[in-house]
């Protein structure tokens, strides 16, 4: 009989200037209910702030919620900074309004999962568990 203590740690961040954080909060809540520890950073984060928080919190996953259309600038920058900090093993997930034609490019850059409106939170939980374990 023993008690394992390791938890999946996820940073949920909203980079850029849009103020729509309902989606980010719904996902944060769903991950919490799946037994993960979710660090929520709040609105209007720069990629630098997000990478810094990911480092200090030593997270396994960074979830970005972007509804401003700036994902092609923000997501690659976050990936770049994570790598520069020695956290290339951290997985980046993306949620929000992401046009289909951008998805292949984002995947190529290293985004592990992309979730548009209507995604089941259970799918997100399943994907995170699969990729972290």
């Amino acid at each position, binding site marked *: 009989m023993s008690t394992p203590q390791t938890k999946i740690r996820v940073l949920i961040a909203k980079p850029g200037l849009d103020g729509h954080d309902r989606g980010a909060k719904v996902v944060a809540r769903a991950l919490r209910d799946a*037994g993960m520890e979710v660090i929520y950073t709040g609105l209007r984060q720069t990629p630098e702030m997000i990478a810094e928080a990911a480092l200090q919190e030593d997270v396994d996953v960074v979830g970005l919620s972007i509804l401003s259309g700036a994902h092609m600038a923000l997501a690659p920058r976050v990936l770049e900074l994570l790598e520069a900090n020695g956290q290339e093993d951290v997985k980046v997930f993306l949620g929000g309004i992401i046009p289909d034609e951008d998805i292949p490019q984002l995947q190529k850059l290293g985004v592990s999962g992309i979730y548009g409106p209507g995604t089941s939170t259970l799918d997100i939980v399943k994907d995170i568990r699969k990729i972290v374990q």
Partner: protein
Amino acid sequence: MSVQDLLAGNRLALARTLSEIENESPEGKRALNELFPHTGQARLIGVTGAPGTGKSTLVNHLAYLYRHPLQGHPPGDVEPQSVGIVAVDPSSPFSGGAVLGDRVRMRDLAGDAGVFVRSMASRGSLGGLARATWGLVQALDAAGYDIVIVETVGAGQAEVDIARLAHTTVVIEAPGLGDDIQAIKAGILEIADILVVNKADRPGAENTARALRGMLELAAPGKRFLQNHAQVMPLPLPPGILATEDNAWEAPIVQTIATTGTGIPLLAEEITRHQAYLQTSGDLIHKEKIRLKTEMDDLLERALVSRWRESITIETYQTMLDKLVERKISPQQAVQILIDGENL
């Protein structure tokens, strides 16, 4: 990544070590052993109070002030101090998950290499801290942070573990949370070295401060005088209280508005004053002793429980549980049998 990297100031090494300590892994335990000789340098400040009283916002401004000291505030700290922050939020009792939201209020500290903020979930602990909070504080102390601020879970009345961890405990109250009966209850108010009435721009702040002041006047023995017909006479000490309380610390009450930073320099000043008091009164050594004793006792308890767990199979435990549910044995009898290892 090693303890050496951490001591050399590598932030990723620090972050990873904090995780190992939090997960109570063998690497984490080893790191704590290696770090321990490097600890004991940081000033430890605890911040506690009910949910929504403004703990995180206040920690944000306090840390910012230590990073950017104003003229004369806090006194003695003319150089910017590096600040480590451990912010604890509750874990879900059902899923074990958590949403840690203290960083939301700490955005003024982003991008400052002299600040390290770590959120942690309470993981089932009830005293306002997580089991591993002490270890995380040790690591930040060893990593060279001048000041380590620990923010507890939103605490109501009895979450007082912080008082055994911090040198200076700041208890935050806000107007409108209770009357003067709340102020004379035992528990969280008693552990305050400094009391803060936050949201001082709200109606009722003065009443809250007055209720707290009334409570303190009842509490601090040997320092108060009864004024009667212009005659001043010291009140007799209650039994059990040492008579050497002439220089005893009396918790000051500071009114703040954390969202704007109003009152924060005054709070920092009181913290400095309290820490100087700890030095001169000898209370610091006393507090250190209590702190280390608490940690050792906790570890001992955990080690005994986990040793016992290893000695028992899940089947034995389950059988005992079944008998308990069928009311064939009482909980006390079950414990007796489980501890003595008697066969069923």
